C-alpha cells in the first residue's frame, strides 16, 4: 500500500456509484451509426464491399461509393453542401439535408435526404433507389438480413417517361387538308355528369358528329382519334397531328363543374389560373410547349370564330380561356379544346345530349374550321 498509484478495493466500492454515470457511455454498446456496417454490393457479376451507416433504421451509403455503384461520377461541394451524380445521359443533384433531389431536371422528394455523417456525404438507400428508378434504370434493393445492397437492371417499367414508341397513324382521306378531331379520354373515362354521361363518351360523340359535318367542307379531311385505356397519351395525340401535318386540331372534353354551355380553351403559359400566375415547364427553353405558344395567335383566332358561331347558333359559349393544357401542348397547328361544362347539372347534361344542340354545335365547329382548309394541302 506504499505505492501511491495503488487504489484499495474499498475505495473503488466507495467511488463506484459516483463513477458509474461517467463510465456508462464508455461501457454501453456502440450505436450503429458510430462505426458503420460493412456491407456487400452486388452489381450484376461484380461484388464490392462498402461501409454503410445505419441511422434510424435507414441505410446510408457514402456518396463517393454511389458513383461506381450506379455508374456515374459523384461530386460534393463542401462549402455549399451541393452534391451531384453525373451519369452518361443524366445528372442528379441536390443539397445535403434537403429532401429535394433533381434527376434529369425533374424534382423528386425523398423522406430520407442525403446527409453528412462523420464529416462525409452519404445518400440514403431511398435516394439511391430514386436515382436508379428515374435516371439510371436500375433497381436498388437493400437486403437487411444479408447486409447486401443489390443493384441490377430495372425489371419493372421505369418511372421515367417512355421517350419513343410506335403509334399507328389512322387512314386519311385523299386530297384534303387534315383536321384532327381528338375525342380525348377513353370511353367511359374522365369527368362524370348527370344521366350517366362521361367525358370520354361525350368526346367521341362530339368528334364523330363534327367529323360527319366537316366532311362536307371543301378540302377538309377529318380524322377522329381517341385514347384507349393505357393507350394514346396527349403527347402522342399531338405527335399524330404533327405527323399528319394537320391544318387544325380540336380536342373534345367535358367538365362536371361550371355553367351549362361550351368553353373554348387555347394553349398559353401566362395568366393561366389567375392574373400573374405563369406556368414554367421544367423542359428547356424552346421545347415542346414553346411550339404551341408560337401558334397561339392563330389558335386564338380559331377559338374566337368558334365562340361567335356557337353564340349565333344559340349555344352559350365562353372564352378563349388560356391554359397550359397538356392536350394542346406540342401541337404544331392552330389548336383548341372545346369543353361542355356543367355536366353534373341536369341542364348541362341535357344540353350536351340534345341531338339538335349537337347538330348546331357540329355546324359551328365546321364553320370555324373552314378557313383552315382553304388552299392546297
Amino acid at each position, binding site marked *: 500500500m506504499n505505492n501511491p498509484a495503488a487504489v484499495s478495493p474499498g475505495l473503488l466500492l466507495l467511488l463506484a456509484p459516483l463513477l458509474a454515470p461517467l463510465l456508462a457511455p464508455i461501457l454501453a454498446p456502440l450505436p450503429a451509426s458510430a462505426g458503420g456496417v460493412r456491407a456487400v454490393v452486388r452489381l450484376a457479376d461484380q461484388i464490392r464491399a462498402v461501409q454503410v451507416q445505419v441511422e434510424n433504421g435507414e441505410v446510408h451509403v457514402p456518396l463517393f461509393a454511389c458513383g461506381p455503384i450506379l455508374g456515374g461520377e459523384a461530386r460534393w461541394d463542401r462549402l455549399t453542401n451541393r452534391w451531384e451524380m453525373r451519369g452518361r445521359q443524366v445528372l442528379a443533384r441536390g443539397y445535403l439535408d434537403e429532401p429535394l433531389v433533381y434527376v434529369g431536371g425533374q424534382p423528386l422528394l425523398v423522406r430520407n435526404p442525403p446527409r453528412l455523417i462523420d464529416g462525409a456525404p452519404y445518400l440514403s438507400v431511398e435516394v439511391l433507389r430514386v436515382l436508379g428508378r428515374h435516371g439510371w434504370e436500375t433497381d436498388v434493393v437493400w437486403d437487411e438480413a444479408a447486409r447486401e445492397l443489390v443493384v441490377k437492371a430495372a425489371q419493372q417499367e421505369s418511372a421515367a417517361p417512355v421517350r419513343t414508341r410506335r403509334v399507328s397513324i389512322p387512314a386519311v382521306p385523299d386530297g384534303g387538308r387534315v383536321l384532327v378531331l381528338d375525342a380525348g379520354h377513353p370511353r367511359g373515362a374522365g369527368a362524370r355528369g348527370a344521366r350517366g354521361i362521361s367525358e370520354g363518351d361525350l368526346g367521341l360523340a362530339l368528334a364523330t358528329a363534327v367529323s360527319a359535318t366537316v366532311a362536307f367542307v371543301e378540302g377538309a379531311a377529318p380524322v377522329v382519334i381517341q385514347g384507349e385505356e393505357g393507350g394514346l397519351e*396527349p403527347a402522342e395525340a399531338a405527335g399524330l397531328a404533327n405527323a399528319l401535318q394537320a391544318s387544325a386540331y380540336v380536342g373534345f372534353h367535358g367538365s362536371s363543374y361550371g355553367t351549362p354551355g361550351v368553353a373554348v380553351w387555347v394553349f398559353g403559359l401566362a395568366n393561366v389560373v389567375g392574373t400573374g400566375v405563369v406556368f*414554367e415547364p421544367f423542359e428547356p427553353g424552346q421545347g415542346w410547349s414553346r411550339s404551341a405558344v408560337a401558334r397561339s395567335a392563330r389558335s386564338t383566332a380559331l377559338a374566337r370564330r368558334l365562340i361567335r358561331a356557337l353564340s349565333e347558333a344559340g349555344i352559350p359559349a365562353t372564352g378563349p380561356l388560356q391554359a397550359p393544357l397538356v392536350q394542346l401542348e406540342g401541337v404544331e397547328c392552330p389548336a383548341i379544346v372545346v369543353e361542355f361544362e356543367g355536366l353534373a347539372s341536369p341542364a348541362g347534361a341535357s344540353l350536351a345530349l340534345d341531338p339538335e344542340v349537337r347538330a348546331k354545335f357540329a355546324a359551328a365547329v365546321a364553320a370555324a374550321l373552314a378557313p383552315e382548309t382553304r388552299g392546297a394541302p
Partner: protein
Amino acid sequence: MKTRRIVLGAAVVAVVVAALWGVPRIRRLKAALRHAVRIEPEASQASYLCYFPTGEGLDLVEESRQAPKAESPADRVRILVTELGRGPAAAGSLPVLPEDAAPRTVFLASDGTAYIDFPRSALEQASGPREEFLLVRAIARTLIRNCPEVRAFVVLADGAPAGTVVMHFPARGKYLLPQSRPARPK
C-alpha cells in the same frame, strides 16, 4: 492522516462527477422549460383564408379557417392544402380535392418554390378541364393570400412529378405566383 486524504480525495471526485453529470442536465431542463413556455394553449391555433369554387364561372369564394399554428412556412403550406382537402364549409361551395386528401409532405426550397407532394390516390379523380383549373386556381389563390414566402408551387404525386395534375393541367413545371405581393415581415 491517510483516512483524511481518502475522504478528501473522494470529496473532490464527487464534486467533479456531480459537475460533469449535472451541468448538461440543468441545460436540458432549462431548454425544456423554455420550450414549455413557448407552447401556450391559446397560441396553438391560427386563422387562415382558404378559397373554394362556387360552381358558377371561374370565381372562388373565401373561407376563414382555424387550424394549428404553423411551425414554419412549409408547415403553413401543408396546413393550408390539408384545409383545402377538408372541403368547403359553406353551402354552395364545391370541393377541389377528394375528401380528406392531404399532402404527404411539403418542402419549401430556398427559391420560394413549394413542392406539394400528394399521395397519387388523392389526384386520381374524374375531372374535366374546368375542375382542374379550379383546383390549381384554389391552391394558387390560397398560397398567394397566406404565404408571401411562396413564389411558386409544384404538384408531385408520390414524390415525383406526374404528367398532369389530374388529367389536363401539366405537373412537369412550376406554377409561378405573382411577384408583386408585399413581403412578409420578418
